[in-house]
C-alpha cells in the first residue's frame, strides 16, 4: 500500500499534468482567438479591396474616354493601386501554420500581424473614401 507521502506525490503529479493539459488547451484557445481577430480585419479589408478594384476600373475607363482630368484621376487610381498591392502583399506573407513555434512567439506574431493588417485596412478605407468622393463630385 502507498504511504501518505507517495499518495500526495502522485496526487501532485496528476494535478500538475491536468493543469498542464488545461493550460495547454488554454494557450491554444488564445492563439486561435488572436488569429480570429486578424482574420476578422482581413475580411473587412477584403470587402474594401473589392471596392478598390471596382473604382479603379471605373476611373481607368473615365481616363481612357477623356471624361476626367487625367492628372487628378491618375493620382487617385495610383492610391487605389497602392492600397490594393499592400493588401495582396499582406495576404501573401501571412502564415496560418505555426508548427514548432512557442506560444509566446505565436502570440507576438499575431499581435504584429494585427497591427499590419489594421494599417492596410486604413489605407484601403482612405483610398476608397477619396475615390468615392471624387467619383461623386463628377456627377454634380
Amino acid at each position, binding site marked *: 500500500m502507498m504511504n501518505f507521502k507517495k499518495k500526495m506525490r502522485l496526487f501532485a503529479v496528476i494535478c500538475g499534468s491536468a493543469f498542464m493539459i488545461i493550460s495547454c488547451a488554454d494557450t491554444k484557445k488564445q492563439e486561435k482567438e488572436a488569429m480570429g481577430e486578424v482574420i476578422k480585419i482581413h*475580411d473587412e479589408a477584403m470587402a474594401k479591396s473589392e*471596392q478598390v478594384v471596382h473604382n479603379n476600373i471605373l476611373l481607368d475607363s473615365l481616363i481612357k474616354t477623356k471624361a476626367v482630368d487625367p492628372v487628378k484621376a491618375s493620382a487617385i487610381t495610383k492610391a487605389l493601386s497602392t492600397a490594393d498591392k499592400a493588401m*495582396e502583399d499582406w*495576404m501573401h506573407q*501571412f502564415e496560418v501554420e505555426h508548427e514548432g513555434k512557442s506560444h509566446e512567439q505565436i502570440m507576438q506574431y499575431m499581435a504584429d500581424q494585427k497591427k499590419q493588417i489594421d494599417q492596410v485596412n486604413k489605407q484601403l478605407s482612405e483610398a476608397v473614401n477619396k475615390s468615392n468622393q471624387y467619383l461623386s463630385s463628377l456627377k454634380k
Partner: protein
Amino acid sequence: MRALAIGAFCLLALSACKPGNQSNTVLPIYGNREPVTKTVNGKTVTDTVYQTIPDFDFVNQYGKHITRKSLDGTIYVADFFFTSCPSICPIMHRNMLKVYDEFKASGNVKIISYSIDPGHDTVAVLKNYADKMGITGNTWWLLNGDKKSTYKLAESYLVAVMEDSGAPGGYVHQGYFVLIDKQKRIRGSYDGTNPEQVAKLIEDIKLLQTESQSIIAQ
C-alpha cells in the same frame, strides 16, 4: 412595335412556365435578357437572348491559354479565390473537391477557379496548389489573368447574386459558386462555404446534364 415585342416576350415567358414543362425541375436562367425580333422566311420570329459570360483569355495551372471558347459545350462551375487566402477559400475548396470527385469521370463538367490575386498566383503557384489539393487532368482549371479583367468578369458571373442582395460591392470574396450551362448562361449561385448548398449544386449539375436540347433552345 416595341409593345408587340414586349407582348411576344411575355407570351414566351409564360409558355416557358407551363406545367407540362416540368417547371420545378428546370433551373432558372439569370441575368439580363432581351427579346430579339427577326424575320425568318418572311415570318416574324421573337427570340430571347440571354446574358452569357463574356470572353476572356487567361492561363491555367499548366500554362495553357484558356478562353471562353475552351468552355464551349461544357457545363461548369466558376468561383473566385486566391491561394494565400487564410479565411474562406480553404473551406470553399474543400467543398469544391466534392464537386470535383463527383464529376471528374463524367467528362462534360468543369470547374473554373479564377484567382483574384494574379500577381502572386502565378502558373507555378497554381500548379503547386492543384498538386496539394490532388487535382489532376483537365476537370478543374485554376486561372491566372489580369486582375481588372478578372473583376469585370466576376461582375458578369455574380449578376444573380447581385440581384438577390441588392447592395453594391462585396460579392467577389464571398465564396460563391456559380453554375453555367452549355450555352454559357448563368443557372445558379451557391454559397461555397455551406455544405448543404454545395450538395444542391451537385444535384443541379445532374439536372443540367439531363436537360434536353429542346428546352435549352427555347
